[in-house]
């Protein structure tokens, strides 16, 4: 279709891995980079490990707090004095207008949040919640990027999920190799907001903790920070294939901030429909913002994938694969060979070989919408709200007539959307 697409910058948040990539158009093997990870902040790293070992829903000791606009520095300091941070606590940092700080004395951030909310200077306070990973697939090309996790080092996808997602958006196409990307001339700015299995082992290794922890996570502050960073970097489309059960105003602020900067955002609706169908965040905020869309998944049959969350926030459906419809019903993308890093198969992982990797999830559906959004952007629709309106208008209505909680406004129709309107049709 569009062979002369203008170059796009797409910010992508990786669910699983280290993927800060500036992808021009090729997905090919890269030699591992030689950068060394910086030393971890011990207290925060220990807090993350504890969150994993104790399966906590938050990072112990971490608290996100937003002050009222009229609270000056003295008032803010007074408000924070109720929590003892300790001499070795990591430095507090701002994520948008919220402050991410840490208390050594009180590891339960729920208690801290309750105390802080009582302070007149505080607008809201909450723990730094953890989003546990529920999908992992290797990915493709890795380039320099930015890491918002505690690793803070060179960006690598050691989980596969982020690069799989990126491939759907912009993998090189029409070259007879691998699969296809949608906006295959777009550029990618992947931002790492999550830690996968091997990331966690690095953390353990740096802390000198023996053994393995078989989990990974994304924390609220990292996700929100990455969204803001992408918007500030000029990203025109952000894909967030991340979700968790904890609401947070910091998501809402970050999403609004991104749209105000002219960035369109897609968010996976969640894969827990068969596990109680909990509302997931930040997807649940999508319906509140024109220019942000929560994406559900359908299988090749065109029916909602059984795992795909439903709810009033679902605005659009896209192909996400469905293992219930067979192995070929998955979404295939060129990604890091899973056998190279699967902890059940190897203790010496590598991340520089690529295979066609099947995966399914709303994480796979969201980048389909992001890719179409990127093409719309290249056609000249630069208003995020207009992009959302276009995608909704031309969607194929599925399920109950009109908008419904399973498919939103229907299945995205890339061709019709890009074709737009003539006088008659």
């Amino acid at each position, binding site marked *: 279709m569009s062979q002369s697409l203008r170059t796009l910058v797409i910010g992508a948040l990786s669910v699983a891995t280290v993927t800060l990539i500036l992808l021009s158009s090729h997905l090919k093997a890269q030699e591992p980079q030689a950068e060394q990870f910086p030393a971890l902040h011990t207290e925060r790293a220990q807090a993350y490990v504890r969150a994993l070992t104790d399966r906590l829903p938050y990072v112990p000791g971490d608290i996100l707090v937003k002050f009222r606009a009229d609270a000056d520095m003295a008032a803010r300091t007074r408000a924070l004095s109720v929590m003892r941070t300790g001499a070795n606590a990591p430095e507090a940092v701002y994520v948008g207008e919220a402050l991410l700080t840490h208390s050594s004395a009180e590891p339960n951030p729920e208690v801290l949040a309750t105390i802080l909310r009582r302070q007149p200077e505080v607008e809201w306070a909450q723990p730094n919640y953890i989003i546990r990973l529920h999908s992992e697939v290797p990915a493709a090309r890795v380039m320099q990027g930015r890491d918002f996790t505690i690793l803070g080092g060179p960006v690598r996808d050691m989980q596969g999920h982020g690069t799989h997602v990126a491939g759907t958006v912009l993998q090189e196409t029409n070259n007879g190799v691998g699969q296809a990307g949608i906006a295959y001339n777009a550029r990618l700015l992947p931002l790492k907001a999550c830690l996968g299995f091997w990331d966690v082992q690095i953390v353990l290794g740096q802390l000198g903790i023996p053994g393995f922890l078989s989990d990974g996570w994304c924390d609220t502050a990292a996700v929100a920070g990455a969204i803001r960073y992408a918007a500030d970097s000029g990203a025109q489309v952000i894909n967030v294939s991340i979700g968790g059960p904890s609401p947070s105003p910091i998501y809402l602020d970050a999403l609004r901030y991104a749209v105000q900067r002219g960035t369109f955002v897609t968010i996976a609706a969640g894969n827990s429909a068969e596990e109680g169908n909990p509302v997931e965040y930040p997807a649940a905020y999508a319906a509140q913002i024109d220019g942000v869309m929560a994406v559900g998944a359908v299988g090749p049959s065109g029916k909602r994938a059984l795992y795909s969350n439903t709810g009033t926030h679902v605005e659009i459906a896209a192909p996400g694969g469905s293992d219930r419809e067979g192995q070929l019903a998955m979404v295939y993308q060129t990604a890091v060979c899973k056998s190279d890093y699967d902890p059940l198969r190897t203790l010496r992982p590598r991340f520089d070989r690529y295979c066609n990797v099947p995966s399914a999830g709303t994480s796979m559906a969201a980048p389909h919408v992001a890719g179409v959004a990127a093409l719309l952007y290249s*056609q000249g*629709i630069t*208003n995020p709200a207009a992009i959302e309106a276009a995608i909704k208008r031309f969607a194929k209505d599925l399920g109950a007539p009109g908008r419904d909680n399973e498919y939103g406004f229907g299945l995205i129709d890339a061709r019709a959307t890009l074709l737009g*309107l003539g*006088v008659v049709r």
Partner: protein
Amino acid sequence: MNRRQLRVVSLMTGLLITLSASVAFAQSQARVRQDRTTIWRIDAPVVAATVPAGTLLDVVGQAGSFYKVLIPEQFGGHGEVGRIAAGSFVFVPGSGDRTISHDGTAEAAPTAPADSRPASHSSPPRRHDEPAMAVRGFGQAGLMRPSAQESFRTVADQVYGFAFGGGVQLRVRNGLFVEGSFDQFRKTGERVFVYDDTVFPLGITDTITVRPLLFTAGYRFGSTRPVVPYVGGGLGVFHLTERTPFSEAGESIDETHTGYRMSGGVEFRGGQWLGTAFEAAYTHVPDALGNGGVSEIVDERDLGGFEFRVKLLFGR
């Protein structure tokens, strides 16, 4: 309008203006100088009418030393053309004649053919009456402004466009006529997306074509005059297409709608075989638009519009 279209239109306009001037020359008026002046039938050495001095005649042509004139109705004429000797009348000043060489009088000519035949007529005599019906063909070019102005402006930037076509007209003596015509109106623009009154052009060419096939009946006021006003009305089918360079099945529009037309204009006769008409027309094609596309957004449903056109007519 691109340069090529502009050149075509300029050329046609020039041609039509030239023809109109020619028509004006041939339709000069003259006044008879003497009583009992004879107007001869054009096809035989037979007296068609005898007219008194002062009679006003429409001069429609020249044949040797004779001039062709319309036989006045009050002297038995029904649109027939006769011939009159050049010296028996004077042209009416300002009536359009360009051929008079001195003092408004035509060159000297015999008062009657010596052998009772028109001098320039050597073929065997034959009867030549104004037919009860006459068929004419015509070509036409026009400037159209669609009623769906917002739709066309959004997609094509411009509202106005040119239409070209032709047709056949059947004319009868009592001033009535019927005609069938076909033309084509085409606009090319760019597909768009509209959001909150903001138009986003998408870089995909969009071509919309309307081809009306119309049947019109009308009335000509004074069909024997050189300048004939007329009005008409009719109906027809409008073939509508909308295409992009890579349309697939179901993406293109290919529809036919029924519509109506009212028209009125003025025809300038240039002798028996040539005429030029300037015509204004309004067409109404209800519910052809508004079921999709930009026309649905701006709620425009009429495919018709106003058109000003020039016709070049051939035949009696």
